[in-house]
């Protein structure tokens, strides 16, 4: 049983290391700023998740009790990575794109970063 858990820990660590290096290599390799956003926010977050799972299994193996406070970091990272990516993409749209270069927003208005509210008494 211990042997199986050791193999699981080693597999988690190796997979997470590969994910981490792929995420950071994609950051310097991809050539479009918005494709560059994909690599770190998805692959690196998965890599850290693998390390945290390995840490939970390791404390289960060595101390024979299940400690779940690593899950807090995992949960926090998985919650905040999309928010960070959304903010950076929004800043990119704001600085480098015009309403003409973007696809239509669907409804009868522009994308939110370009939409300047004018003469709207309900806003105040």
């Amino acid at each position, binding site marked *: 049983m211990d042997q199986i858990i*050791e*193999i699981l*820990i*080693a*597999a988690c*660590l*190796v997979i*997470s*290391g*590969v994910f*981490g*290096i792929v*995420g*950071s*290599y994609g*950051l*310097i390799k991809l050539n479009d*700023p918005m494709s*560059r*956003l994909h690599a*770190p926010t998805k692959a*690196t*977050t998965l*890599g*850290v998740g693998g*390390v*945290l799972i*390995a*840490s939970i299994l*390791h*404390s289960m193996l*060595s101390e024979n009790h299940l*400690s779940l*406070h*690593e899950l*807090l*970091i995992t949960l*926090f*990272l998985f919650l*905040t*990575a999309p*928010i*960070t990516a959304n*903010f*950076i993409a*929004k*800043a*990119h749209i*704001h*600085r*480098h794109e015009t309403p003409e270069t973007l696809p239509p927003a669907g409804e009868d208005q522009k994308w939110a*970063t370009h939409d300047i509210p004018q003469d709207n008494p309900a806003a105040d």
Partner: protein
Amino acid sequence: MIIYAIYFAFTCFGAALLMNLWMIATAEGIGDRVLALDTMVINSIAILILYGLTQGTEIFFEAAMIIAMLGFVSTVAYARFMLRGNIIE
């Protein structure tokens, strides 16, 4: 067997940190620099947890938690500054 896997993961995340540093130094836009800094925070969390794994202590988890929170807040503040030229209006 675990110790070799830990060494492998240390090597991978250390190389990832060096790549992030390279990206911060040579990126042409400010958005890429913010992205590289955010990735650097996440990679350093992984390295801290791996170090705690080798030492067998639990004290590094609190440090990793604090770094995760501060990294998120600083990235959001920087993106906010890029968007509006101001952080708290």
